[in-house]
């Protein structure tokens, strides 16, 4: 299949791997930001192919993993009310809140629906004026423009029964938080290809000036990731720290300007709590005051809902690249996808779930290096 087979070609992958092995003269610790990239690394066993000195640690870019417990609790609270239809992407339904998940709300008679785009939620709201339709909007800069567009459209149409429970997060502040930690081990980042498709990569230049760390914006197929790893290794070996773009078939320097425009029109930057990482200043997006009538948190009075997340959970250390999922004594024993003890085991993009699903058969665990 065009644009797929060539990026999964074993010969190209092995050639890139040989070049990585040739160029890497010292150990390097690299982090892929996106959960989608983690998933590819595990699904295709790329960690198995890398030379021993090049270590991949897994970043916080899994939307399900970093969405705080209290937002899930708010969604569950809203979805349980009569007359409400809560609409969401599929993988949010399985994420446990403090007491139950959205699948259970659905089983108990709540109207919870899976959609593939927020415009479907809009369509449902137009067709069902008697129901309050709430779209549960989570994710990074990638999903934010389509969600912004839905709210913008709803306002333009004067829809009275559509609102959004929004908990968007931004990548650059999370990278800054990781790099600012005294425990940071990461020496180079594979940047988030789809986030940068929307946002471009201008904003990553600032991080490089501040921390002198190379960032290569990467794609999601095996050959993309291997090429990005090679570009990082070459920069590190040459003592350079620049933003480079491996994912040229999708990402431009400026990004998608119309998408950025609607994003800025509907959302504003706010402080945001991340599961596992805690509060990070100016790391999220919230609806602007002009769109307050579409803010489900305000409409349903759930602003007060809070949930405590213990700070000592290992998922925080996994999401920051300090430890590997296999370093956790509960991994694949007490903590499995059926019985997750932490959010990274819930989503298929979470590092723990990806290790569990694809790699737990290896005698030497990938994290054992």
């Amino acid at each position, binding site marked *: 299949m065009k644009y797929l087979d060539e990026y999964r070609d074993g010969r190209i992958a092995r050639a890139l791997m040989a070049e990585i092995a040739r160029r890497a003269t010292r150990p390097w610790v690299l982090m892929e930001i996106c959960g989608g990239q983690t998933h590819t690394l595990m699904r295709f*066993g790329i960690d198995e192919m890398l030379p021993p000195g090049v270590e991949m640690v897994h970043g916080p870019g899994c939307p399900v993993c970093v969405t705080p417990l209290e937002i899930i609790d708010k969604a569950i609270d809203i979805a349980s009310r009569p007359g409400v239809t809560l609409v969401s992407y599929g993988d949010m339904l399985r994420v446990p809140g403090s007491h139950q998940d959205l699948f259970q709300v659905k089983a108990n008679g709540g109207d919870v629906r899976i959609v593939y785009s927020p415009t479907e939620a809009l369509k449902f709201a137009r067709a069902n004026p008697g129901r309050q339709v709430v779209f549960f909007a989570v994710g990074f800069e990638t999903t934010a423009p389509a969600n912004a567009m839905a709210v913008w459209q709803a306002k333009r149409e004067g829809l009275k029964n559509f609102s959004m429970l929004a908990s968007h997060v931004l990548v650059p502040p999370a990278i800054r938080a990781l790099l600012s930690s005294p425990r940071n081990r990461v020496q180079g980042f594979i940047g988030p290809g789809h986030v940068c498709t929307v946002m471009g990569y201008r904003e990553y230049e600032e991080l490089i000036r501040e921390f002198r760390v190379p960032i290569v914006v990467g794609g999601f197929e095996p050959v993309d990731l291997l090429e990005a790893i090679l570009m990082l290794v070459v920069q590190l070996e040459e003592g350079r720290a620049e933003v480079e773009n491996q994912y040229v078939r999708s990402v431009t320097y400026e990004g998608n300007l119309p998408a950025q425009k609607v994003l800025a029109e509907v959302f504003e930057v706010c402080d945001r709590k991340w599961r596992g990482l805690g509060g990070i200043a100016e790391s999220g997006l919230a609806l602007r005051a002009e769109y307050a009538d579409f803010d489900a948190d305000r409409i349903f009075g759930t602003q007060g809902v809070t949930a405590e*997340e*213990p700070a000592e959970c290992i998922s925080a250390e996994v999401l920051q690249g300090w430890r590997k999922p296999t370093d956790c004594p509960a991994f694949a024993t007490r903590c499995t996808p059926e*019985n997750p003890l932490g959010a990274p085991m819930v989503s*298929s993009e979470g590092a723990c779930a990806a290790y569990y699903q694809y790699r737990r058969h290896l005698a030497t665990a990938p994290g054992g290096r």
Partner: protein
Amino acid sequence: MTRGTKQETNIEAGLVCPVPIVSRDSVLLGHGSGGRMSAELLHDIFLPAFQNSVLARLDDQAIVEVNGCRLAFTTDSFVVKPMFFPGGDIGSLAVNGTINDLAMGGAVPLFLSLAFILEEGLSMDVLRQVVESIRVAAGLAGVSIVTGDTKVVEKGSGDGIFVNTSGIGMVPGSLCLSADQARPGDRVLLSGTIGDHGITILSQREGLQFESAIQSDTAALHTLVADMLCAGDGIRCLRDPTRGGLSSSLNEIAGRSQVGIHLDETSIPIREDVQGACEMLGLDPLYVANEGKLVAIVDPHSAEPVLEAMRQNPLGRGAQIIGTVTDTHPGLVTMRTRLGTSRIVDLLSGDQLPRIC
């Protein structure tokens, strides 16, 4: 399930989990997915209640002996949205699905029962269409519908039509095909492309309509099975990978036989448009449903003749040897990726859910 709703803490390891363990005190959609949640339901609720040696085989059909005659017996219920889809409908699915459950035991299907649960208000035209489709499918397969039942539920209590079919067939000689028969060295044979049915259904769902030429592969496989059985006596197990896809069938065999199964990714046939749809939706075709494919565990000496026989039958034209049974990692299915690395092909917990981005 007796899981608590409290947060579990692991004091010895110094870990506190941020996500509470959730009790499963009600039936969830995932319990019907054919994945791990379905298996849980079976082992926690049904098997303890009905223990007997016939049921304990846990194959797609029961094999019972009556006066020296070996009968295969099975039942299946069909709920599908939309009712009509490219390549078939709920009627043909209900006939072919039950025939296939019999055929996977090597049985010659003979008789079917047909039971409807209809929702008040259902159009008679729709019912007629479904019945006509059942008539045609049964005729093509050479089975008779010999008994039936109809119930009507109030509007809102059903979803148009629910169909149940049960089937009886005869098992020739001493043939014994079962998921616990796989042995290291056996080959894994697949009759054709995977994911066609599941992606067809998804492509018809509200909000997802995408243009494609993909059709459901729904078909009765008993003639293919008969051809395979003629070609070699080394067939140990047959499965039709429906709900939960190829992965669920192979995981079941690996678990029941306590063997490993090692697949070769490049040899698994997948249509390009099915692969494309899966990429777009973030799904893995190994977990997507089929309704007209079978996977066979065959001893190494019979593998080639059986493969040849499959390819001679129109329903097995795309057949391939896709892997080997091993003595490493008992109970696990692994796969050599096209990069030459290896990965697990796991049993999914519940339904496969499209990812956020």
